[in-house]
């Protein structure tokens, strides 16, 4: 696909479809965030950056073979590694055995919030959320420094 505008819009559609996939997999909080972030904000930022740079004619590489080989080898190695994984949606998988039953059973008694994802995110693992907010703030500082929007009175 040559046209970068179409590529960006397709990227937004891909995020929306993956949000629907998350709803089918019972992850409603994640679907909410992915739809808002991927299909909304990401597309707007891509389009505004694209409007700054403008269209450039894309050059194709001479040979696609090395990239194809790398991708096929990595894909084969990853599929070989999935052969050890537990079956899809198995209730007895190890991931559901250790800390998760404690969160599901004790969360209402200890915290009193029905949404388990919020209680884990904001109370049991609030340190990680602090780190995440710091990452978002650092990204803001990086973008402001790169794009030169730091001082407004030097016009």
């Amino acid at each position: 696909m040559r046209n970068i505008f179409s590529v960006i819009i397709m990227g937004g559609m891909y995020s929306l479809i993956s949000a629907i996939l998350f709803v089918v997999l019972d992850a409603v909080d994640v679907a909410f965030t992915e739809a808002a972030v991927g299909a909304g904000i990401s597309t707007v930022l891509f389009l505004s950056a694209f409007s700054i740079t403008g269209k450039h004619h894309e050059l194709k590489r001479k040979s696609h073979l090395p990239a194809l080989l790398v991708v096929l080898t990595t894909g084969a190695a990853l599929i070989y590694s999935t052969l050890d994984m537990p079956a899809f949606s198995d209730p007895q998988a190890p991931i559901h055995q250790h800390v998760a039953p404690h969160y599901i059973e004790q969360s209402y008694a200890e915290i009193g919030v029905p949404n388990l994802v919020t209680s884990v995110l904001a109370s049991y693992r609030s340190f990680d959320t602090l780190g995440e907010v710091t990452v978002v703030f650092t990204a803001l500082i990086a973008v402001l420094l790169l794009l030169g929007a730091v001082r407004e009175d030097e016009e």
Partner: protein
Amino acid sequence: MMSLITDLYAYWISVLLMMVGLYIVIDHNNLFKKLIGLNIFQTSVFILFISMGKVDQGTAPILKDGFETFSNPLPHVLILTAIVVSIATTAVGLALVVSINKYYKTINESEIEAIEREQE
């Protein structure tokens, strides 16, 4: 063999998407397409994690009377953090692309490499 496919198809789909994203990052020249490929790669990892957290005949992890089995909330928390971090890295990546365009006047990777080689 059939039981292998019905057990593991979710993971294979996400590996396929991961490889598509990796191919786009490696092979295309345009920096915007590379960033979209990175986005596809990240989303495929999210799908892998969320599919690992699904429980058969469970429901969304919000406590309500009448529901007994819930999906595992831990991967959801992890992926929520990861989605917000992905938007942060995409924003920084786009700012880098805009700065690169201002300096080199192009956003094709092979042209940038050629300019860098001439400047040595």
